[in-house]
């Protein structure tokens, strides 16, 4: 059965953190609730789990591809057209470094852009459960739960001091 979203709104961030504690005590997995804020809070301020992402992998892969392409392009060009310039070796590292550096950078940037799209979970067709007051400083506690758990979740959120509660699709 599709999960239901419940959004509790708090004017005080401390109450939102308490709501997180209450949800944990209720047995809601920390993968099933999140905190919505209009500005970034310090990591761990709500006692939330450490969120991870693999964004750093993308530029490394891109850089590696770019570097490889750069090395291949320069070395193969110079082997195919072996022109001795200024008495330097055919495969001279400084001129190869120019192209490989740029190739590495371009590869890294291209893959970073792909990584941004992937890690931001784009495209997101809809905004999901939200409230305008979050932009004005309220903190939202967004819970994804089974339909039969909704009443209990709402009770926990209210007990923690939620000023308003909304239901909807996550």
């Amino acid at each position, binding site marked *: 059965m599709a999960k239901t979203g419940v959004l509790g709104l708090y004017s005080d961030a401390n109450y939102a953190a308490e709501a997180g504690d209450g949800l944990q005590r209720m047995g809601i997995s920390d993968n099933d609730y999140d905190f919505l804020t209009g*500005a970034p809070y310090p990591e761990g301020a709500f006692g939330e789990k450490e*969120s991870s992402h693999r964004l750093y992998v993308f530029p490394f892969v891109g850089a590696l591809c770019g570097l490889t392409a750069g090395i291949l*392009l320069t070395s193969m060009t*110079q082997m195919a057209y072996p022109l001795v310039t200024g008495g330097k070796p055919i495969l001279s590292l400084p001129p190869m470094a120019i192209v490989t550096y740029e190739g590495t950078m371009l590869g890294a940037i291209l893959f970073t852009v792909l990584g941004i799209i992937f890690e931001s979970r784009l495209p997101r067709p809809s905004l999901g459960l939200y409230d*305008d007051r979050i932009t004005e400083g309220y903190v939202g506690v967004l819970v994804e739960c089974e339909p039969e758990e909704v009443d209990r979740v709402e009770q926990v959120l209210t007990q923690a001091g939620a000023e308003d509660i909304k239901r909807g699709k996550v």
Partner: protein
Amino acid sequence: MARHPHEAAERTGPPEVHLSDREVMQDLAEKYDAACPKFWLAVAVAGGLFALGVLAFVIRALDVGLSDSSRNEYGYYAAAFAFLIVTATTAPLAAIAFRWTKNHWRRPFSRAAELFSLVGILAVLAFIPMLIVLPGIDLNGDGVLELGKDRRTIWFSAPIGAPIWWDMAGLIGVVVCGLALLWVSARPDMAQIAQVSNGLRARVMGRLACGWQGTVRDWNVQKGQMAILGAFYFMLLVWVHTLISLDFALSLIPGWRDSIFAAHHVLTGIQASAGLLIVVLFLMKKVGGYDRYIGVDPFWSFAKVLLGVTLLWGYFWFSEFMTFWYGRDETEQTVIKLLMVESYRTAFLLNLFFSFFIPFVLLLWNGVRKSVLGPTVAGASVIIGAFFMMVRLYVPAFNIKDVGAESIAEFEAAHGGTAAQLLPVLPGPLDVLMVVGMMAGAAFIFLLGTRLIPIMSAWEMKEGLMYVLYRPFMKGKYLVLGKPE
């Protein structure tokens, strides 16, 4: 703890720190929505001058053509383009660097710095004619690169597409990276504007925000994205400075060898973009209505950075100069005469005066640094200085026809003992229009950009308010700043 700046408070007013998120959001949204007539007048003037610049370029291109043989007609165009690179394209670096170092005082101008990424689109378009007039490497087309017959470049082994496609790819890479950085940074604000606006703006902002919710993961991923894009922007921007300075200035002047020229070009970019951002900050405070968010702190702090960079600029220039001066090689002497003491003496003196003497003498004094006007005047000065530097570098480089020669010292002297190719080129009316048009185009794009994306980052200002407050301590009131990590 820093002492509450009473003296500065009388002169400039400290930023307000007791604002709620709601107040910040409403205030910034109002400023974003309502543009005054003066703003639209500025847009119209910039747009008009930009159009005139484009027209001047078209007239010039129809008149003399657009090829290697007419390169000398585009010296001022090249200088204006290089000026665009050292100012607007370098400006996002300030947002990146001060975000890395977790400076609070960067918050009011971070977005303004990132908005200059939009000007990169103009830079890419303006770069196309530059690439068309750039001479090839193998000048005689015999498939062999020989000293004295072909052009000396960094494209030593002439890989496929060098230098044109590699130069363009580098610039496009920087622009794409800058635009991605701007989007990543502005996404939370776009989502929030979509929430508080109506109609077309809400729909456009909603689309651009791509479902931003502000979850803990959203913020963490955004932080990582900004860090990575920032690092690559920095690494590639330095590279683009190097490519442009070497391909469009140094390698067009036969015999000019200078190991720190590219680094000096980058440094000039850092200095000029810092100056540009101080001036933009001043305008935001005095004209834009953002006075309550901008105290003296960003000016004071930026002034220290500008002073350091200015001293470094002076050191770099002198290092460049003394190597040539002591070398006493005929080519080196001719290069000094061309770029500094004879042909382009006026531009050089203006460059030295505005890039070094004025900011150095002004920012030497703490009272001037700790003010709004002092750093702004110094900032405006380094922008002017950077422009004259680009003129004295790119105009003579583009005026040299015989780029395959071994040395400019070999050019046959004609007029008053100076070779014709080394004589100063004064700007004509079309040159002036092209230069003004390029700058106006940058201003036009930037101003329009502020109608799309707020010039002040709401989420960063709100984040900053979480970490700052004035607290009484004994008989004084002190600013307490927190750092999240």
